[in-house]
């Protein structure tokens, strides 16, 4: 097994507050690696550090053995990394399909003159991209919105649309930031299928999620964060049995006693 993503002693300070501190872990190729932790544990900060939206205060991130230090966010897609957002980042001024096609950006020609004159090669490539992206929308389960404007789509479908857009960049590694937040049980179950099928395509998935049922049923590895530090790491079974994790989540091993005390 090779580590596709490797995080070494990563730290991020916001004016004296350590959002992430001395964090090291590795994500192996083809796995579903989940990151859980209470609110404010630093999960989203970690994602922002990995994807270049924040620059780390210390430590490093390597993708495929290549350091990501100093990379701009737009330089990560070509390196094979793409992500979704906890708060949706959908372009509401575009159609659903165009949002997904945006994901293919780096694979398409965009010369100024080819674009102005709409040369046949560009037209063909764009039509092919359109069809592939429609298939991707089908794949993530929002194919019925292929003709819709993004602003006309319900929340759950927009979450899938973001996943489709991330997949459109043909990433090696996909970072999903709370994809199940705001979804009902049925939608979450459907999402689980989608994530599984993404992993089946050989794409490594890093998942930040609060929905324990989803995390425990799908992950190969689980990393537990607490106050920016690693609390535990292991398979879902190991994590479920880990007393530190139970403490962090429930405050006390016997919460009922605590509540009545």
């Amino acid at each position, binding site marked *: 097994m090779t580590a596709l993503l490797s995080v070494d002693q990563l730290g991020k300070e916001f004016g004296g507050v350590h959002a992430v501190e001395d964090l090291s872990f590795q994500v192996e190729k083809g796995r579903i690696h989940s990151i859980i932790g209470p609110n404010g544990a630093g999960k989203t900060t970690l994602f922002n550090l990995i994807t270049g939206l924040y620059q780390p205060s210390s430590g490093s991130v390597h993708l495929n053995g290549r350091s990501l230090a100093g990379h701009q966010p*737009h330089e990560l897609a070509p390196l094979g990394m*793409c992500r979704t957002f906890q708060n949706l980042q959908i372009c509401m001024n575009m159609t659903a399909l165009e949002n997904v096609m945006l994901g293919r950006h780096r694979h398409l020609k965009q010369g100024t003159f080819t674009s102005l004159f*709409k040369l046949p090669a560009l037209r063909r490539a764009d039509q092919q991209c359109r069809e592939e992206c429609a298939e991707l929308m089908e794949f993530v389960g929002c194919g019925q919105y292929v003709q819709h404007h993004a602003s006309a789509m319900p929340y759950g479908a927009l979450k899938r649309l973001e996943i489709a857009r991330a997949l459109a960049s043909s990433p090696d590694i996909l970072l999903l930031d709370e994809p199940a937040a705001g979804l009902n049980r049925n939608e979450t179950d*459907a999402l689980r299928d989608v994530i599984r099928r993404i992993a089946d395509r050989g794409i490594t998935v890093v998942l930040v999620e609060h929905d324990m049922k989803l995390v425990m049923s799908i992950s190969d590895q689980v990393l537990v964060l607490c106050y920016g530090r690693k609390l535990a790491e292991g398979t879902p079974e190991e994590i479920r049995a880990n007393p530190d994790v139970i403490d962090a989540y429930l405050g006390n091993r016997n919460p009922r006693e605590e509540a009545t005390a």
Partner: protein
Amino acid sequence: MSEAIPHRPSRVRAPAKWPGLLALAVVLLALPLFAGNDYHYDLMIKIALTAAVAVGLNLLVGYAGQISLGHAAFYAAGAYGSALLVQNHGITPVPAMLLAAAGVAVLAWLVGKPILHLKGHYLSMATLGLGVIAAIVLNNEDQLTGGPDGLPVAPLSVFGHELSVFGSYDLFGLTITGTQVWYGIAAGFLFLSVLFALNLIDSPLGRALRALHGSEIAAQVAGVDTGKFKLRVFVISAVYASLAGSLYGYYGGFITPNIASFTHSIELITIVVLGGMASTYGVILGAAILLLIPQFLTGFQELEMVLFGAILMAVMIFMPRGLVPTLARRFQKEAP
């Protein structure tokens, strides 16, 4: 996926552009039927050229979400640049127009390059400064530009045929006036401007631009180098302004530094905001309205700036999307 309705992706097509373009062509061809005299033609030519600038500016404002307060400078640079190249260097008008546009592209690139990788509205400040400098230079370098008195411009000539407004020409047996020829040139230029703008908007480059406006973070994560794309569209919009400016000079035969004024830049921005940001056809209507209003306000010339300000405020308050997108939405809602 059980709930997904099966679709045949091959049926997914880009929305057709030809109905809009056809409608535009019909309107442009039909307008001369209503033009009674040369004065009407003059107005239509000016509207068409201004609309073309606005179509270009709209790419920047409406799609890339950046504001230029100095587009009049690019317009003036095109007008003066081509006029001077013809006058002082003996270059024929069409290549002079293209050379001037290339120069403007370089100028816009130099101004935009250091600014456009910064977040925020620094471009507005820089272009504001550029506009002011351009007006000062044109006014004061009177050896070269004629100063406030203006500069006569040689008429456009194509393959040795001079196209002057005062001429009269033979087209397939029909006798047409120079003004009518110029209407054809301006209308054709506007049509091509729209065609190129629509092509651009619908291309991968255009998607990246629209994404900048929709969600800059999403665009970045998809691999769009946002600064680079803003710079590109800024240069494109400056070239639009430059070409229209050159044509304006050839058409009018005389240019003054007024075309580089701050008022003119504001007029252009007002047109885009009024017509509808991110609405190519909307800004054409915006140009028509804004250029027609002063016709009904003769004698109140000084009020023009006040009027632009009032229109800007009213549009922002009552229909921030602009005239055409707001009306389009209203009709869509009423229609079943």
